[in-house]
Structure formats: C-alpha cells, structure tokens
C-alpha cells in the first residue's frame, strides 16, 4: 500500500493534482482513495491531499504515510515527518533545513520554474512528473492525464514541460509493480456520487445555497443542467431553497436540496411544511463541525439527532446514512422513490469526509433501477374543477397525489392541519385521523430501507457499531484483522428496532462515531434500551484515520 501526501499553500491547485494522481494510479490498476484537507480561505494556509493506493481495495486515510511532496515550506512545517519517510522538497528554497527529515529527494521547484519561465501553479506538474519517475511508471500515462486536464493547448504545453522536468530530476526508484491497466472503474467524490444518483433518478429541480461541503453538488448539477433539463437555482438563502423545492415538488417535479448543517438550520421550518403538506423532497445534508459556522472545511458526524428531530412537532421522515460512494449513489436514487411513494422528506446524511474525498468504484449499474413515483391521480376531465381528497388514505397511510393542472384534482396543500381535501380544520378527531395516517407509513417504510448490516467474521471478538462514513475506516480495518467485525447503519430511521436489538445483543460492542456525544449510541438506547458502554469518539474536525482507529479499538476493547 502506498500513502502519498502532497502539501502546500491554498490556491496552488493541490486538490486537482491530488485527483489526477489518484486517477493515474487507478488507471494503472490500483485502487485509490484520496483525502483532501484545506482551511476556509482561498489563498495561503495549508492544503494537502493524501492518496492511498493499493492493489487491494482501499477505503480510508491513514495518519502515517510514506511520501510527502512539499510544494512549499508550509507543508514541511505542518506535517510530522519521520525518518522512515521520503520527502520530496525543494531543498534550496527550504528556509529551515533542520526540518528536512527522512529520506530527502531534492525537487528544485524554483529553479525549474524560472528555467521554464512559468508560474507557481506548474509546481503540481513538476511534482507529478517526479512521482511518476519515482514509481518507475510510464510517462505517457501522466501525459495523457495532463492532456485531458488542460484542454487549453498552451496550458497543456507548460504542464507537460514541467512534468518532464520533474521526471528528469528524480533518480531514485521505488519498487512498484503495475497490475493491469484499468479504464473501467471510476474515481469520484461522494458529492459526485450523490449528483449522479440524483440525475439517474430524474431530478429536474434543484435549489440550494452554496455551503461547504455541499456546494460541489450545485456546481455539478448546474454544469449539467442543460444536458438533462434540470433547473438548478442558487437561491437567496436556504429558506428559499427548500421552499422552492417544495413548490416544485408540489407542482410535480422531482426536487432536491443540498446543504450542510448551518444551511439545514434554515430549512427546518420548511421541512415541517413538506411533512404536513406531504410534498416529497430529498434533502442532502453533508455534515461539518459546528456549532454555527464551526470549522467549515472539516468533517464531523454531529448532526444525526438534529436531523432526526428537526422542526416542531412529530412527523415521519427517512434518514439514510450511506457509508460509501456506491451507497451514496444508489440511496440517492432510492431517496426520490421513497419520497414520492410515501410523500415524505428523505435525508441523505453525508459528511465532509465522504462528500469531498475520492474513492474508487465500479461504474454504477443502473439497469435494475426503477423509478417509482407513487400514487398520482390521472384526472377526471368530466369534472375539471372538482376538489379531490388528496389526504385520504389509499394505502399504507398514503393518499393519492394530484398534480396542479390535473382536471378534477383540485386540493389545498396546507401548512395547517387539514381535512382530506387540504382545508384547514382544528377538529380533534380529524387531527388524530390525519396524524395516525401520516405515521402509519412507518410500518411500510422500514421494509423499504436498508437495515444495519454486519461486515466481517460473524463471531469476531469485538463488534464495532457505526454509521455513515465510518464504514470506510472499518472496511480498512477488516483488511488488517479478523478479531474485529462491525455493524454499519446505512439508515437510522425508521428501523425495525426489535430486529436491530437482536442483531446487537450478546456482542462485545463498541460505538465508533465522528462526534463527541455518541449520537447513534443514544438513538440505539432510545429505541432498544440497549446502552453500549464502550465508545470511541473523535470530534476534532478530522475523520478517523484507519491506523489510529485500529489502535484505539484494540486499546479499548481487545
């Protein structure tokens, strides 16, 4: 397994270089995972991108890595470099040479830049060239990548030159065997998986307000709005975004919003409107540390209970907590079906780590996927202006939707409690009928959403319990040991909790969550009475690192 980090100041393009390198390894047959870190500023500061590549599957970042490419000093001072590592750095430009530890390979960025008379951005390609040489790989493969990346001929030339210079600089070799070329599998981020899932599902209305780490969903969908006839709106705020999406859904669109916890805070009121008006909606919430603005570019799993309980009073929602890019893709597709079958809000809960990191996967198969729009009234042309009992149960607690424009389907979609036609009423019996009907859906939804799943040897000594992206670290750990297995929650609500309880009982359980208060632990206790005593929690804005987590688990529980 190779673990390479590229570090340097923000604004140098480290993120795209990281991705290029990831793809490069992937094309050479490796499985890659790319984990980016950056602060909330545009230029300066410290950015880095960690690549994990292996012939086996890889899923998660490691704390300890092997090679550091330092684009400037800032990487050297920000990273812990130890003697076992290889450091690629511009020795001459390094102010404090005592920082140069490990096996130092000189990469004279400055000299090369001035020789080529190009600007700093070219450092990336120099570094890429150097790495290609170090791993004894085919330069053509990199060159192809550069061509794809720089459609502008002039830019390509510069970077091509820079890469060659980098390539020529390095004499050392690392033993590294290329398996088979792979043009099949894909490397993509969590947000890209979500976007692709939504596109496949036929999303045609997307309203949002930019917020890290959800913004790239907007960028992606906006980029493709014309090819797929999607209306994408960057609204004046998140309140507008969710209400617009609700309006669109009411009018018959498949609509989605995407935001982070802060933006979702502003959607809380609208969430309740979607719930009582039974307007289907898909909400992507990609978590970052809070409270409030918190740490905008970092990761955390701190919003689970918020999302489960948001908005006044009680209603049914679905909270999906996918753990990898495949789940992000397929669950997003299914989220639209669930929303439209049950007329409810459906959440995709992601986090910065999952949304913005890169993962390798097989291209998504979509043949078996089917769009299910639920019950929609076909209309009665004879009586076009007749009211329709849209809030009367047809089956499973669900009524028949009617889309404005449909003859004979008139009704009022209400934020108030209402009768079967949507007219406001305070009547006590009606209230109970409507609440019961809306909650009845739960019984059917539980069968339609994924149940917690055990990964690894069934009778391992210790069972980690986790949700969302922690699946990635646990998959990595399964590669190391079979003394640990884990139960992953790909959805949290609504579940068949008696089944969950049976699954959890009589195991040596330990909760692993990327938050401070162990929210899944709470939710399990709340629903089963089972209190999992052991917890491993992390809430410093970083995801768990596979090596770190493995140590913690063995320390805590083995």
């Amino acid at each position, binding site marked *: 397994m190779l673990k390479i980090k590229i570090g340097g100041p923000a604004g140098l393009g480290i993120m795209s270089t990281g991705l290029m390198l990831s793809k490069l390894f*992937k094309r050479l047959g490796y499985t890659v995972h790319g984990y980016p870190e950056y602060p909330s500023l545009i230029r300066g500061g410290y950015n880095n991108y960690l690549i994990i590549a292996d012939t086996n599957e890889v899923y998660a970042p490691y704390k300890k890595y092997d090679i550091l490419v330092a684009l400037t000093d800032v990487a050297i001072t920000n990273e812990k470099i130890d003697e076992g590592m290889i450091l690629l750095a511009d020795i001459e430009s390094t102010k404090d040479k005592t920082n140069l530890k490990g096996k130092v390979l000189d990469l004279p960025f400055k000299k090369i830049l001035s020789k080529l008379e190009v600007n700093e951005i070219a450092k990336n390609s120099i570094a890429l060239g150097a790495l290609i040489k170090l791993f004894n790989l085919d330069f053509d493969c990199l060159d192809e990548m550069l061509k794809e990346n720089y459609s502008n001929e002039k830019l390509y030339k510069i970077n091509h030159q820079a890469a060659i210079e980098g390539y020529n600089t390095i004499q050392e070799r690392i033993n590294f065997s290329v398996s088979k070329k792979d*043009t*099949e599998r894909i*490397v993509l981020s969590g947000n*890209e998986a979500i976007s*692709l899932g939504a*596109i*496949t599902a036929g999303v*045609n*209305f997307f*309203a949002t307000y930019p917020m890290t780490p959800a913004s790239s969903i907007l960028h992606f969908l906006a980029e493709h*709005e*014309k090819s*797929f*006839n*999607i*209306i994408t*709106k960057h*609204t004046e*705020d998140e*309140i*507008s975004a*969710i*209400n*617009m*999406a*609700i*309006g*669109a*859904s*009411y*009018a*018959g*669109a498949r609509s989605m919003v995407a935001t982070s916890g802060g933006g979702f805070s502003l959607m809380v*009121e*609208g969430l309740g*409107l979607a719930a009582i*008006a039974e307007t289907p909606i898909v909400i992507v919430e990609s978590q970052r540390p809070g409270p409030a603005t918190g740490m905008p570019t970092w990761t955390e799993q701190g919003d689970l209970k918020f999302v489960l309980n948001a908005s006044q009073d009680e209603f049914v929602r679905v909270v999906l907590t996918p753990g990898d890019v495949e789940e992000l893709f397929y669950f997003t597709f299914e989220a639209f079906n669930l929303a439209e079958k049950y007329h409810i809000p459906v959440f995709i809960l992601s986090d910065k780590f999952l949304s913005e990191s890169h993962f390798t996967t097989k*291209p*998504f198969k*979509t043949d078996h*996927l089917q*769009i299910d729009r639920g019950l929609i009234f076909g209309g009665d042309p004879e009586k*076009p*202006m007749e009211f329709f009992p849209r809030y009367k149960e047809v089956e499973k607690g669900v009524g028949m939707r009617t*889309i*404005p*424009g*449909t*003859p*004979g*389907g*008139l*009704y*009022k*979609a*209400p*934020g108030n409690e209402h009768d079967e036609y*949507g*007219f406001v009423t305070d009547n006590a019996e009606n209230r109970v009928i409507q609440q019961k009907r809306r909650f009845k859906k739960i019984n059917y939804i539980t069968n339609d959403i994924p149940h917690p799943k055990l990964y690894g040897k069934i009778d391992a000594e210790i069972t980690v319990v986790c949700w969302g992206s922690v699946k990635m670290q646990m998959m990595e750990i399964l590669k190391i040991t079979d003394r640990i297995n884990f139960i992953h929650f790909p959805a949290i609500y609504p579940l068949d909790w008696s089944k969950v309880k049976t699954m959890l009982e009589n195991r040596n359980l330990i909760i692993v969550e990327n938050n401070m208060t162990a929210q899944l632990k709470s939710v399990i206790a709340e629903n089963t009475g089972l209190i999992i005593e052991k917890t491993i929690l992390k809430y410093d804005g970083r995801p768990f690192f596979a090596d770190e987590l493995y140590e913690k688990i063995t320390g805590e529980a083995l």
Partner: protein
Amino acid sequence: MKSVDFNSGKIPNWCPGCGNFAIWNAIKGAIAELDINGKDIVNISGIGCSGKMLNYLRTYGFHTLHGRTMPVATGVKLTNHKLTVIVNGGDGDGYGMGMGHFIHAIRRNLNITYLIHNNHVYGLTTGQASPTTDKGLKSKSTPHGVIDEPLNGLFVSLSAGATFIARGYSGDLEHLKSIIKAGIMHNGFSHIEILQPCVTFGKHYGYEYYDERVYRIADDYDPGNFEEALKLIREKDKIALGIIYKVDRPTQEEQLPQIKNKTLIDQGIVKRDISAMLKSFA
C-alpha cells in the same frame, strides 16, 4: 366561467366588513373574465387573515408558511409555467418576514401575480404593528407608538426592478378587479399592493381614511415612464390607484433553455442514462 364558479364552498371567516372580501370577489371576477380554468390556477398563500384567501377559491392551492410565498410560487412556476400562479399574503407576511424573498423574486421576474393585502397591521395575530404602520401609531406590540420608519413597498419593488407595480383598493372593487386582470395578463412579475381595511385591528386605516385620499390614475397615464411612476409612488397625501409602472422584460421562464420547448411537467420524469458521463471519471 362565472365568478361564483370559483367559490370553493367554504365560507370566508373574515370579520364582517373586512377588506379581504372585496379582494376575494375581485380575484374571482378577474379569473372568471379571463376564463381560466380553476385546475390551471395555483393560489399560493402566506399565513395571516390575507392568507386564508386560497381556502375560498376553487383552484389548486398551497397554503405555505408565513413569509414564504415567493419561493414556493417560484418552484411551482418553474416546474409548470403554463399554470397561472396567484399569490396572496399580508403586509407582515410579504414586507416583514418575506422581504428578502420578495426582492429576489422581483429580480427573477417570473410570470407570477402577487397580491399584498396591506392592512397596515398583523391581523391574524390580533393587532401588532406591521412594516407599513405609520410612526407614532399604537398597537399591541407598540403600545407607546411605532418608531420604525414605515416601509413604502411600491418604492422598494420599483428599486428592485419590478416590471409591473400597481395599487388597488378594497373599496373600489371593479377597479381592483381590472388591476388584478392586468396583473395576471402581464408577462412577468406583477406586484399589486391592495389597500385592505382591517376593520378590527387596523382601524386607523379604515374605509374613511382611504376614501378621503385615493384616486384612480388617469387613463392617459403612461405606466412605462419611470419618473412618473416614482412620483406617484412617493406621493404623500394622496394615494394613486391603478397600474403605476409596467415594462416588458424577458421572464425567467423564457430564458431557461431547459423548459424552452416543454414545461418540466410535460417532459415527465424518466430514468436518465449516465453511462457516457461516467467515462469522465475513469
């Protein structure tokens, strides 16, 4: 179609004498005369006495949240721009809570007709001052008199670039109906503020108050003239009724290639093929 055909069958529970009755009748009259089928109309309401409007109309309707009519209406219109979208909301709803959305809705210029029932008060919550209440007036929330400067809603919408600005009055039903008709027919965002006496809490602004001040804009007035419009909007003692400003600007729905040929609704929802796109991730 006749006006009565648009009665929903629910009896309005506004206070006897409330200015909302006239608005109700004006809306019904307007859509009847324009002969739009109720199935092709979506009435969108905010929360307030004003917002109850949609319950009394035989059309599709969405009773949204307080202050959130604009985004919901935008979502509806973009999804199916063949629908006639009419919005009713209060001065609190639209100029208070909803002010941000209002301005940005104007910028979008969708073909939506927005009726703001300006009763200078929060009616449904029993009489707090609204953004349009004059300085010094006492209310439940300002027992010692309002100190915020009152808002001139028409001026704000002019400044934000509204393409249709009009003022109607509950005390002049026929005229109000004609304005609403014109608003619906205007291809763009129509902002119609309606002087709506609240006989229970907004007593300062009663029929007598308005009857003394309002006048119909002359027939030869050119609503395309910005300076003239500004003059009417900034009048102090008299209150002009009619279409104050009207210009043509492409609507948002006309500028979206996604819905150039067909509404989103008419395109339907189909599973899309992403296989070609996936190649770029290889």
